[in-house]
């Protein structure tokens, strides 16, 4: 599985939605499954999957699946 697919699967698992719903324009608070409570679990899942530790600013800026890719790349993960 590519790293990008791994990120998509992490979203799918953490938010309990099908992987094909995890598109670039999937946005925070746009579906009931991705609310603030789920966001905490999602961040933890991403950190664990890629063995990285996000800063507070990145946790807050992670407002879409596209943005999540951009942020994860900052931590030297080649998606």
């Amino acid at each position, binding site marked *: 599985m590519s790293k990008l697919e791994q990120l998509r699967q992490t979203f799918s698992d953490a938010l309990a939605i099908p992987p094909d719903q995890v598109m670039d324009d999937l946005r925070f*608070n746009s579906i009931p499954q991705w609310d603030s409570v789920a966001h*905490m679990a999602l961040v933890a899942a991403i950190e664990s999957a890629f063995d990285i530790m996000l800063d*507070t*600013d990145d946790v807050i800026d992670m407002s879409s699946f596209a943005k999540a890719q951009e942020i994860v790349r900052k931590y030297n993960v080649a998606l």
Partner: protein
Amino acid sequence: MTDNEQPVGPFAIRQSDKRARLLGRLQALTLHHYTHCTPYARMLETLHGNWREASTLEAMPWLPVGIFKHLRLASVPDEEIIRELRSSGTSGSLQSRVLLDRETAAAQTKALARIVSDVLGRARRPMLVVDRIDLLRSGEALSARGAAVLGFGNFGRHHTYALAPDLALDLDAVKAFLARFSDEPVLVFGFTFVVWRDLVQALRARGERLAFPSGSLLLHGGGWKRLADQRVDNTQFKNAVADALGIQQVHNYYGMAEQVGSIFIECEAGRLHTPDYAEVIVRDPITLSPMPMGETGVIQLLSELPRSYPGHSLLTEDIGAVLGEDDCPCGRMGRTLRVDGRLPRAELRGCSDTRPA
């Protein structure tokens, strides 16, 4: 999460610049809410008929904070509301209802992040939440405590809850947390009274003392009323925390569900700081005229964040005093505040029996 403008402050703007900046932003908000929230427009016309002429922050119209317990006030269409906060923090048994859209919720989150990062730094820390493990339930309207844990949760990782659903101290969970993160500073967060009763006092009752890692920080808010009833002040609180937990760095914050995000955080010098996004005015409890610095009265809070509901200018039910401007030993700009507690048994009503100064 859309604006790309340079982050402000959060405590960088001198008082004179800040007042001019805020006045323009708050006037625009008043007009926005007047245009988009019919009940707000009616209240303005009734209570503050000359609101259009307000040329100072002190002259701006305000609502009594208790209004959110009686009216459902929104300045955006219902389909844009993504979250409803409920709070029973103000006097009486009714709950406030605060309606947030995506834009306002994001602005609150960002403001809170900038303010808290100013004392905590940018790196997230292992976080012990001093509250019930089942506090956050998806789907329900968020309690003020739940909203606070979510907002402050962004500064933590490996969130661990210190209390069982019945608020009993889960000492095993706390000790496991300490064993796992024994060599890095952690963040402890909770409501002031919950930290006092369910952690500090609970540890005392068991004859237990804990040693949190050096550099750990306790952040707590939610008011002193119940502690004041037990004659516990900030100094005693800090001493007890240092004794029971070994934590030296303790910061109180003052904030409310009706103005989430623009909180007042206690600095190293022990003063509550007004962030760049907000202002505080103290008014005479009887005449409601603005009071000089240092004098104790009713606290009015102004915040540039509330856009989805008309909460940008609120007369609270708290009493306190402005301590200074741009002159705190810690170096942060803006006004510093002392909060003394709640107005005794009073609920200021804006409907008929008070008039603005």
